């Protein structure tokens, strides 16, 4: 018997006797005979020692960020993770617990979610944040659904062309079945004002804008928010939580809903997941929102405690009338964000944001000075667009030989941005790494 199964053969024999059957097969007598004992072609079992050896070999085939200098972002960022985060989130009491359905023995999970919700509210300037969605893309889709459900006669969503391409794709998949049109990104080079002039009308339920946008640009969106509100629609902002360490909270410039990818808050970059979908909104939208919420209450003796609340929105209560089908979320990633924010605190988060800003601007200045390269971004946080003398894919191959993971090839999603690389710089990049990038880019030129 396999080592993860504690019962011995003698245990099993005794149990079958108590059950009153002669064999395990009898317990499966209701399964169609021809379907039983299917031949399943899997590799043979491995011991822990052998399997770890194989996994190490597979891992070793991948170029990773402890070994390479990374300048790739585009929605997933390499940030410093304090040791407190892995040590605390991998405590079995958090890690091997289920959704906190029985609050009396789940206060640990419940209070940390309440704390996470509170800190996300402070970061974004919103009144309420939920316990998480799958990632930034699905949080955005749920925000769009909330916008449509907020009105009886508005059923169109406008997206900025500079919203992450994969968020726009996910949005379309989510809303396709419900027949909700998504417009605004037909011309990927159109400025936001032109998009609004063309589409914003009495049928618009929501407008979704990223800030910083996919190309790294940060904007004062007050005028945009006013315009969206004047048309009666909801203004949804997709934010980068590390940037919120220094930039204005979207709630202070008119956002009704703030979503975002929370990976940067203490979560491993891990080849794209599991990540953390941040979702926060103004008070009046809470009861139409999706996902779990934790609320504060008291016990029979008046002591403070926490429970899952407003569950009447959710699938296990409302079934086909629920606001979403979401059940399992990204609770452990939210816990990582909670521990991260507690550790970084007011000063630390600001410092990380400023380090990103300073280093990115230094890198941009140095690249702009290289012959053949042009930085086209104006007001950016930690990511900017570089027009290169050659195709980005070719350049990245050369950078790879220099142990550098180059930036994102924008021509894949934005055909008008030919030979354009989106370069991300974080606190993890040293000045020496930036210099090495310059040397390598210079070599590409030749």
């Amino acid at each position, binding site marked *: 018997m*396999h080592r993860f*199964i504690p019962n011995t053969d003698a245990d099993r024999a005794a*149990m079958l006797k*108590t*059950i009153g*059957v002669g064999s395990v097969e009898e317990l*499966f*007598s209701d399964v169609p005979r021809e379907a*039983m004992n*299917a031949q399943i072609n*899997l*590799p043979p079992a491995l011991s*822990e020692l052998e399997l770890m050896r194989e996994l190490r070999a597979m891992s*070793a*085939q991948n*170029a990773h960020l*402890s070994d390479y200098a990374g300048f790739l972002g585009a929605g*997933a960022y390499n940030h410093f993770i304090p040791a407190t985060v892995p*040590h*605390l989130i991998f405590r079995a009491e*958090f890690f*091997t617990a*289920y959704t906190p359905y*029985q609050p*009396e*023995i789940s206060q*640990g999970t419940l*209070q940390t979610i309440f*704390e996470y919700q*509170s800190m996300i509210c402070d970061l974004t300037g919103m009144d*309420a*944040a939920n316990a998480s969605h*799958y990632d930034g893309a699905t949080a955005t889709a749920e925000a769009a659904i909330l916008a449509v459900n907020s009105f009886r006669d508005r059923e169109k969503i406008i997206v900025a062309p500079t919203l992450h391409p*994969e968020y726009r794709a996910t949005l379309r*998949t989510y809303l396709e*079945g*419900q027949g909700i049109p998504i417009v605004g990104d037909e011309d990927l080079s159109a400025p936001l004002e032109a998009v609004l002039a063309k589409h914003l009308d009495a049928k618009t339920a929501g407008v979704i804008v990223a800030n910083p946008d996919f190309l790294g640009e940060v904007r004062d969106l007050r005028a945009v928010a006013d315009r969206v509100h004047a048309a009666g629609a909801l203004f949804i902002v997709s934010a980068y939580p590390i940037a919120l360490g220094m930039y204005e909270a979207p709630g*202070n410039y008119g956002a009704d809903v703030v979503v975002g990818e929370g990976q940067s808050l203490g979560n491993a*970059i*891990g*080849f*794209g*997941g*599991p990540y953390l979908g941040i979702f926060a909104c103004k008070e009046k939208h809470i009861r139409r929102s999706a996902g779990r919420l934790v609320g*504060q209450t008291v016990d029979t003796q008046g*002591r403070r405690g926490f429970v899952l609340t407003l*569950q009447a929105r959710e699938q*296990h209560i409302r*079934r*086909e009338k*629920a606001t*979403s089908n979401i*059940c399992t979320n990204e609770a*452990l990633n939210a816990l990582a964000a909670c521990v991260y924010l*507690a550790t970084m*605190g007011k000063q630390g988060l600001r410092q990380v944001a*400023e380090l990103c800003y*300073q280093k990115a601007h*230094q890198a941009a200045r140095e690249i702009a000075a290289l012959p053949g390269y042009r930085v086209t971004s104006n007001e950016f946080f930690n990511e900017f667009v570089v027009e290169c003398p050659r195709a980005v894919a070719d350049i990245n191959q050369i950078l790879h030989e220099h142990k550098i*993971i180059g930036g994102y090839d924008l021509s894949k999603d934005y055909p008008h941005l030919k030979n354009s690389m989106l370069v991300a710089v974080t606190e993890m990049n040293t000045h020496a790494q930036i210099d090495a990038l310059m040397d390598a880019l210079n070599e590409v030129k030749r």
Partner: protein
Amino acid sequence: MSIVANKLEPILYEMSTPGAIGVSLPDSDVPETPLPQHLMRKDLPLPEISEVDVVRHFTRLSQKNYCVDLGIYPLGSCTMKYNPKMNEEAIKLPGFSQIHPYQDAETVQGALQLMYELQNYLGEISGLPGVTLQPAAGAQGELTGILVIRAYHLARGDTARNEVLVPDSAHGTNPATSTMGGFKVVEVKSDRRGNVDLDNLRAKVNEKTVGLMLTNPNTLGLFEERVQQVCQIVHDVGGLVYGDGANLNAIVGLVRASDLGFDVVHTNLHKTFSVPHGGGGPGAGPVMVRENLAQFLPGPIVVKHGNEYSFHMPQHSIGRVKSFWGNFLALVRAYTYIRSYGREHLREIAENAVINANYLLARLRGAYEPAFPDRKCKHEFVLDGTRFAKQYGVRTLDVAKRIIDMGFYPPTIYFPLIVPECLMIEPTETQSKASLDEFADALLQIAEEARTDPDLLHSAPHNTPVSRLDETRAARDPILRYKTREPLAAMRDPEIIPTGVG
């Protein structure tokens, strides 16, 4: 849970002291650029806490949680099995945890190989060869499956179908998913043996049927006795059958979904394949389909040409369901788990899960009423608490809370909706006979207490950090974030704190 756990723990903001720091970061090593003052925030009201206090806060909070590593966690349909420790060593390898999702495929061949092989394993286990690893959870797998079925009908020019059949015993995610897919939900009744009522099914299928969402074994813990007939009835009207794989643990390695008649299934890697639940997530919900449906799957999926792995978007894909490539680190854990069991041992999971459930059911018979007394269960079973409620005024909620006093997590309660006052118990294969006996003895004692001392149950739990919480108040006047520092007296435990705690 230690006695420290019974002390009231302040909220992070209440621990904040101006000037306290939990982290040290390097100084900037580049010349300074002026900050964009016109775009900056005036205040960042996050707490300020030292590293030591952060660690103690979360450690103390952790002690207010029950978890699988402490003992049985018998939530029905949740498959709270032991999470092997080696999975966690696997995900920490830098070639998995420290790679960027947009790196060129040539630089992440090991990661792609792992995904490719996992696709194949899940294809083998389900018998359905088209596999996408994209969905982040079971419910997202359901949405994926329903959208794939929708795309299949539309591709055939079959545009009039708009009804999804869902049994009354189904998880709430099934009807919620159907709505998200843009369809109407039609409920199908269960019969007296807990199966889909075939007559009711026949009466409800027609040319508008998109398909049926079926969980097998179902949420009553029962194998659908005429599952092939059920699938046939749906196929006969041109519909497809979606299998909710939440309960795969009962048949994994023994029975393939394809052989039962399913066209599309999802599997919860955080249930059957040992990915830890993390207090509510993350999970992963890969979807497997028949060959003719593979063209509609969300991508990208991993393909192999020669010895090289790359990402590929299926030809008529429904699109993306999330960003990047699925919950990769959850996939690494599931891969590790499957390789650890291998072809020889995989079926032992199902066999032992079913033995354990039937053994526990046998031990409880008499004291508790099985909802379907004539049937052997699969990996879980449902008890009907009506008699306790009628005879002793003890509700299932009271039984559940008393279980907490006994040192265990309670089972799922009040679900499935079709059994009144129900308890739904899933022990999983990773409980020993000794631990099941301990749990059964506790439940038998509670049954006795229900008769002799019902108030003991009404007031339970008695030794937890908090007693029963006012959920009505929480929902009526929601407090969803920390607002102001409460006076200390309001948060202090009015009870005497156990000796030895400061």
